[in-house]
């Protein structure tokens, strides 16, 4: 049988799970493919085609001694941080003198117990858990490049410190000290904490001892099959990834006898029961639902409404530069000394105003477009010597669309002919003023078709910037939008049925009519025959009787 293509992709995969990691279970299946006695393995480039069916190459049992099946193949199910001992460790820890740390002693006890109960169930596959020395050493001395002179850098030393510390103090997250925000003299510990990433990470290595048969227990034959890293946020990193549908991974041992092993890794963690999942979902939904209700109760359901048929315009604004007129529809800003900004002199007022207007839509005449409100502004200057001058007039129509708008109004001031007036304005103050500010746009007293400003001399002065936020509120918006929504949903519902129902109704009507016609036809000869046969003098009268029948039939 043809083998599946090898998987050469040994990149890591990242999984996220909210379940506790102790439910994680992996099944590792390790199998030797070739025997070095017979076959020199072909280079990897020619996978699949040159692999000859293995059955023909199975060596006869006599040629190389008795090979128990366990040596060719092994399968183990491993849980998270489950310690499986290798032959090397078994040999090592049985010797009491080799035990130094409490962990070593603990291992020794376990090994002795295992030996007493009949040996361990795994032979070649074993694991290094987070607390083993291997993990520290591996992380410290792991080489990334082929350079012979690669030594662990400064950062690696620091990170190794972090890991070692993590073992002693697991679960401590970096909290923000509320009392002191800045530490002027960080201690060594503080530097270790903060200068490198500190997420607690638990590692586990699944190893295989690929020594030749009978020579298990040598460190140099240890190979890493899989590395598992789990952090406190439920992120599980598996390198290489679970085989799944990919082909198995291969390891080629080096040395005088090149052997080829393949292994697969499968995730056999028990899935949460659907009931449990459902329960979890329900709990979450409950929690969020209750939170939502609480917020809703805070919010309430009132809102201020307009009179039906009215459009309310609500404007919030700020002014850089100047003054409208009085009450709520007007305001006077403070006096502000200008400063130079680039080439211009600017004065910042930041004058807040809020303005609300209602428009009642009384008659439905389509040609009268609503006139939008107009904002008038008048800029004045008042100086140290109490000289009061008009600097400019301007006006702008409020925007018709809701939203944020920045409007710049250019201003002008009326000028008199002749230098005398200008000199007077400069030295003493006082100038021409408008009596009616609405003259700036269309005077209130204007009646007619053409406005003529002939004869008014003006001079352009600066500009005023308004920033406005406009909101519009009306019942019509409410109705139209909800109506639109309602219509849309009704149409959606009807769309599917409308054609069918019309055809159906037509067919029904047709059938009914046909039935009635048949009934009428059945009755008709009787009506015609009966009365005409029985009453010969009434042969003149069959029609009324027939006519009577007809309406009732139809």
């Amino acid at each position, binding site marked *: 049988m043809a083998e599946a293509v090898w998987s050469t992709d040994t990149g890591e995969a990242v999984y996220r799970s909210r379940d506790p990691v102790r439910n994680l279970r992996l099944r590792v299946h390790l199998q030797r493919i070739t025997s070095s006695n017979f076959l020199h393995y072909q280079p990897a480039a020619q996978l699949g085609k040159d692999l000859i069916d293995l059955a023909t190459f199975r060596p006869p049992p006599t040629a190389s001694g008795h090979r128990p099946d366990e040596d060719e193949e092994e399968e183990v199910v491993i849980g998270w941080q489950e310690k499986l001992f290798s032959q090397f460790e078994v040999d090592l820890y049985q010797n009491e003198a080799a035990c130094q740390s409490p962990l070593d002693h603990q291992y020794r006890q376990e090994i002795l117990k295992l030996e007493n109960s009949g040996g361990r169930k795994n032979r070649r596959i074993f694991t290094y858990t987070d607390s083993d020395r291997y993990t520290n050493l591996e992380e410290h001395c792991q080489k990334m490049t082929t350079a012979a002179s690669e030594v662990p850098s400064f950062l690696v030393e620091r990170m190794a410190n972090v890991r070692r510390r993590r073992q002693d103090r697991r679960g401590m997250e970096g909290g923000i000290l509320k009392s002191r925000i800045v530490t002027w003299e960080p201690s060594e510990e503080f530097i270790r904490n903060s200068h490198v990433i500190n997420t607690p990470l638990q590692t586990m290595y699944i190893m295989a001892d690929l020594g030749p048969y009978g020579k298990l227990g040598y460190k140099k034959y240890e190979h890493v099959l899989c590395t598992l890293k789990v952090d406190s946020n439920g992120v599980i990193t598996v390198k290489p990834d679970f085989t799944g549908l990919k082909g198995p991974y291969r390891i080629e041992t080096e040395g005088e006898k090149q052997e080829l092993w393949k292994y697969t890794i499968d995730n056999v963690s028990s899935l949460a029961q659907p009931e449990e999942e459902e329960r979890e979902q329900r709990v979450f939904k409950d929690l969020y639902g209750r939170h939502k209700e609480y917020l809703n109760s805070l919010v309430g359901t009132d809102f201020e409404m307009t009179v039906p048929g009215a459009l309310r315009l609500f404007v919030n604004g700020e002014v850089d530069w100047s003054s409208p007129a009085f009450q709520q529809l007007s305001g006077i*800003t403070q006096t502000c000394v200008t400063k130079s900004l680039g080439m211009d002199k600017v004065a910042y007022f930041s004058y807040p105003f809020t303005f609300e207007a209602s428009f009642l839509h009384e008659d439905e005449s389509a040609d009268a477009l609503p006139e939008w409100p107009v904002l008038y502004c008048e800029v004045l200057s008042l100086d140290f010597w109490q000289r009061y001058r008009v600097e400019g007039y301007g006006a702008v129509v409020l925007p018709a669309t809701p939203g944020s708008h920045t409007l710049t109004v250019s201003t002008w001031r009326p000028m008199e002919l002749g230098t005398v007036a200008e000199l007077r304005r400069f030295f003493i103050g006082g100038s021409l003023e408008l009596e009616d500010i609405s003259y700036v746009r269309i005077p209130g007293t204007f009646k007619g078709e053409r406005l003529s400003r002939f004869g008014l001399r003006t001079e352009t002065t600066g500009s005023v910037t308004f920033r406005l936020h406009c909101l519009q509120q009306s019942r019509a918006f409410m109705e139209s939008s*909800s109506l639109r929504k309602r219509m849309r949903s009704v149409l959606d519902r009807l769309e599917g049925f409308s054609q069918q129902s019309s055809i159906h109704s037509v067919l029904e009507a047709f059938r009914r009519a046909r039935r009635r016609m048949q009934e009428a036809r059945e009755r008709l000869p009787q009506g015609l025959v009966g009365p005409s046969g029985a009453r010969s003098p009434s042969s003149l009268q069959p029609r009324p009787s027939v006519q009577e029948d007809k309406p009732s039939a139809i």
Partner: protein
Amino acid sequence: MAEVHVIGQILGATGFSESSLFCKWGIHTGAAWKLLSGVREGQTQVDTPQVGDMAYWSHPIDLHFATKGLQGWPRLHLQVWSQDSFGRCQLAGYGFCHVPSSPGTHQLDCPTWRPLGSWREQLARAFVGGGPQLLHGDAIYSGADRYRLHTAAGGTVHLELGLLLRHFDRYGVEC
């Protein structure tokens, strides 16, 4: 009732003649508004620009309001102060801006002004520091008595505010 979320930051300030600036900010709303979550006022750290003109604060603003009406739309008022090496604080400007009313992200530049005293006080301020301040902070965001003031323009405070509106269309408000 409708809800408004204001999420953004006070970026920093430019155009002030003093360095070492910090900002005190607050939000003022009308009677129909209720603050559901978030802090209504705060103070940034003191920042001294080393390169360039802008003092950066990046102070977060995260508020959730519920409202019964459109009146009293929230207004943000700011006071920019400078702190000198002796620890004394001096007013650099008062500023104000309305929270925008259309949903989306808005970049706001809020110009500031400060009250001017007599020429004697101005001279003293230039050399020794100090200067007049407003007696009542609400003059910043209300326009009623502004005409009594004589002010000078200050710098500009830059803000970035994102706005989320909810249920306004149910009551016929277009924004």
